[in-house]
């Protein structure tokens, strides 16, 4: 099977070279046969990478430890689900998985555009095949996932125990889908620049892809936070680790793009800026891949140090040189209308919003690379950790949430002072009232009070928008409230879906602020039968249970959770000792409510004294982050769901030109 996999990636690499060359030549010469050959190569590339993935999966499932990758990332006792997850648990597998997702995206793009965008498609195909070919070239020439060992170990080294968690089975695929699908808008942007067809067509074509990639980047980041929260056991979910930063940066520039692109669609402005954001987002995904695989920056998340760094840097350089070169070449054709009636307009708030997104992205980038810079310049290793990122980004984050509240209400073109006063009366009242209530309730932290006020302001503008729209429909159509609301959303999916996403982001933001500022923590020894109090809960240590399987030994504490003397239930924090590799891990146990999480970690247990040492955290409102994730999903689905008109247009576009239709 390894031979089949190896053959598939070698053929895939050859096909990628042929397909990209044929597509570019076909596009330049307007040679339909060559273009068609490029398209076929894209499909073949998908099939071949699919075969390679299936081959590696088969090797993992059959525990063929003669294959170096299988021996390094699985074992005979690894549960099936994690054996499948081992496909992306190591560097080689993750590169193959990445290439496969890209190949699938390429095939879907080919199907979607088989009757449209025909001038641009050769360049789209070429861009995607060159990117896919680059990844396959690493697998063919540098780091072969199908490499066989000169001997067969009797047992595998197993998947890192930290990765043996359900979040780990969905976090990397989500993030990879988000990363890889940014290639589609990038490819269309390059195609638009190459062909000189710089109307909004490429933006309309890739609108859903941009949303799709943004959504999966959002999910990937949230799932990663959830994984860190339940696996690392330090009571937090985000540590500004370089690899977390690598996943966050494209999300920021992608978010900026989703906003600024609306100005291009509505006002024919910011054409160059939108190109820059699409290029930057894609480049940041490659930069993130470089960070995790080069070993240039140490991180708990990164794969083992490898020699891949220079290849990614060269590829990144080529991407930037080609795309920015094309952009400069086409600058004269990218003239926008550039008219603005007033600085008090939605266009202006969107520009400020972009400034904040890109400002935060730069701060994250700068903080991530500064240790390397410091070592180069001064020869001194330094750390840039949470205090830096929190202090610099907190005011920018607040400004973003404020603009989130301002943007939807302020009018396109021009907003008068009187309209601003009317539009903002309720939201400003809500914001001030929330601040006062927070102050009265004893929230002494200035940032938290400002953050809650601004969040309340932003939520109020969103709800006011829904309310006003619903009332207008009710008045004009005589519809019942729920009918009016659902039709309001159904008729304006992009706008109201966007508002739902904004509500989700405010929820996530509030969860971050509350859980960071008002966290209570306690490290304490508890004797069996005794209780400790934390944040209004009483936690009683009821005993220890030991379990053992051939894969892992588990020491499990039983904690009873009481509120006001009433038993709410039990939680079971664990210490696990994995046998292959011999490594202890922490399995936290959480009593979660909408108001707070009681987060329990078992430290040690002394048999003689019957005392367990526990870390207990009370994380207020953290579940709002995860609920925000569901709301975000809902909002994105609303945004992406095609309207009747779009479905009709899509169906019409499938009919080849010149074909007969019956009526």
């Amino acid at each position: 099977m390894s031979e089949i996999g190896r053959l598939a990636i070698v053929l895939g690499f050859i096909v990628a070279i042929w397909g990209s060359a044929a597509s570019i030549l076909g596009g330049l010469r307007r040679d339909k046969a060559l273009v068609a050959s490029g398209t076929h190569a894209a499909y073949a590339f998908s099939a071949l990478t699919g075969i390679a993935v299936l081959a590696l999966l088969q090797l993992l499932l059959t525990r063929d430890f003669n294959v170096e990758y299988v021996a390094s990332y699985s074992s005979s006792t690894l549960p099936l689900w994690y054996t499948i997850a081992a496909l992306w648990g190591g560097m080689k597998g993750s590169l193959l998985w990445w290439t496969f997702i890209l190949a699938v995206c390429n095939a879907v793009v080919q199907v979607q555009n088989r009757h449209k965008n025909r001038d641009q498609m050769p360049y789209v195909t070429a861009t995607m095949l060159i990117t896919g070919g680059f990844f396959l070239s690493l697998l063919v020439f540098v780091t072969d996932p199908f490499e066989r060992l000169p001997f067969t170990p009797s047992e595998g080294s197993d998947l890192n125990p930290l990765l043996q968690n359900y979040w780990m089975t969905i976090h990397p695929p989500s993030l990879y889908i988000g990363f890889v699908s940014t290639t589609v808008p990038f490819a269309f942007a390059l195609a638009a620049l190459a062909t000189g067809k710089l109307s909004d067509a490429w933006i309309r074509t890739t609108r859903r892809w941009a949303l799709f990639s943004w959504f999966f980047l959002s999910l990937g980041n949230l799932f990663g936070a959830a994984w860190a929260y339940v696996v690392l056991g330090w009571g937090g979910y985000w540590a500004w680790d370089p690899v977390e930063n690598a996943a966050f940066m494209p999300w920021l520039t992608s978010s900026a793009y989703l906003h600024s692109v609306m100005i291009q669609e509505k006002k024919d402005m910011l054409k160059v800026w939108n190109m820059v954001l699409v290029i930057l987002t894609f480049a940041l995904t490659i930069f993130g891949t470089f960070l995790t695989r080069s070993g240039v920056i140490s991180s708990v998340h990164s794969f083992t140090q490898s020699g891949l760094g220079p290849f990614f840097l060269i590829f990144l350089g080529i991407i930037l040189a080609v795309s920015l070169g094309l952009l400069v070449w086409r600058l004269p054709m990218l003239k926008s209308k550039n008219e603005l009636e007033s600085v008090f307009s939605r266009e202006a708030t969107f520009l400020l919003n972009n400034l904040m997104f890109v400002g935060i992205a730069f701060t994250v980038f700068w903080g991530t690379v500064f240790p390397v810079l410091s070592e180069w310049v001064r020869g001194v290793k330094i750390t840039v950790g949470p205090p830096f990122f929190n202090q610099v980004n907190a005011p920018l984050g607040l400004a973003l949430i404020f603009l989130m509240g301002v943007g939807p209400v302020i009018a396109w073109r021009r907003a008068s002072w009187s309209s601003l006063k009317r539009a903002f009366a309720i939201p400003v009242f809500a914001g001030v009232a929330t601040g006062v209530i927070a102050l009265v309730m004893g929230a002494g932290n200035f940032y938290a009070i400002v953050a809650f006020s601004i969040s309340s302001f932003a939520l109020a503008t969103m709800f006011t928008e829904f309310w006003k729209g619903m009332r207008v429909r009710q008045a004009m159509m005589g519809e019942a409230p729920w009918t009016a609301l659902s039709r309001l959303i159904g008729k304006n999916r992009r706008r109201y879906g966007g508002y739902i996403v904004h509500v989700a982001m405010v929820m996530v933001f509030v969860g971050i602020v509350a859980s960071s500022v008002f966290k209570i923590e306690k490290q304490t020894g508890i004797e069996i039968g005794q209780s400790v109090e934390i944040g209004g809960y009483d936690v009683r240590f009821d005993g220890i249970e030991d379990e053992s399987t051939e894969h892992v030994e588990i020491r499990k504490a039983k904690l009873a959770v009481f509120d006001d003397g009433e038993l709410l239930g039990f939680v079971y924090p664990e210490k696990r000792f994995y046998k292959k590799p011999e490594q202890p891990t922490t399995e936290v146990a959480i009593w979660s409510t909408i108001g707070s999480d009681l987060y329990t970690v078992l430290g040690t247990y002394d048999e003689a004294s019957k005392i367990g040492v526990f870390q207990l955290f009370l994380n207020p409102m953290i579940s709002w982050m995860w609920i925000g994730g569901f709301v975000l999903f809902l909002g994105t689905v609303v945004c992406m769901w095609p309207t009747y008109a779009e479905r009709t247009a899509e169906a019409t576009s499938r009919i080849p030109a010149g074909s007969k239709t019956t009526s």
Partner: protein
Amino acid sequence: MLLTSIAGVFGIAPARAEVPTQNEVETALTCQCGCGLTVHSCNHVNCGSGIPLKREIGEQIGEGRSLPEILSHFENKYGEIILSAPTTRGFNLIAWAMPFVVLAIGGLTVGVVLWRWRGATDADKSPVAPVPPTSASPAENELRERMERELRERDT
């Protein structure tokens, strides 16, 4: 001076003389076990770095030292890498200043762009018929117009 002001506003340069809490110092230092977390966040069982550091922090606080003094002690002993944020001295000041410089340049650019676009509109502006006064705000009128348009689309 400007940079020092920025640092001061965001509390980067701790100037307090009072004794800090254990939590404050632990958060300002990075655990050296390779976890990448602050000393406060590292909860590795029997961590060879985090646990002695926590003990040492406790001793420093017990001696009544201020936060800058304690951080200076750890910096001298373990090197700059132990601090969880760059210092505000020399080359490291660039780390703090650069995001604000970039934001300032970006803000200035946005301001200039908005001003120029607005100027372009003023120059091109042709006389328009005055909008009849209504009781509704422009935003509400816009919403109503949109609704009417959508309802028309729905009926056709």
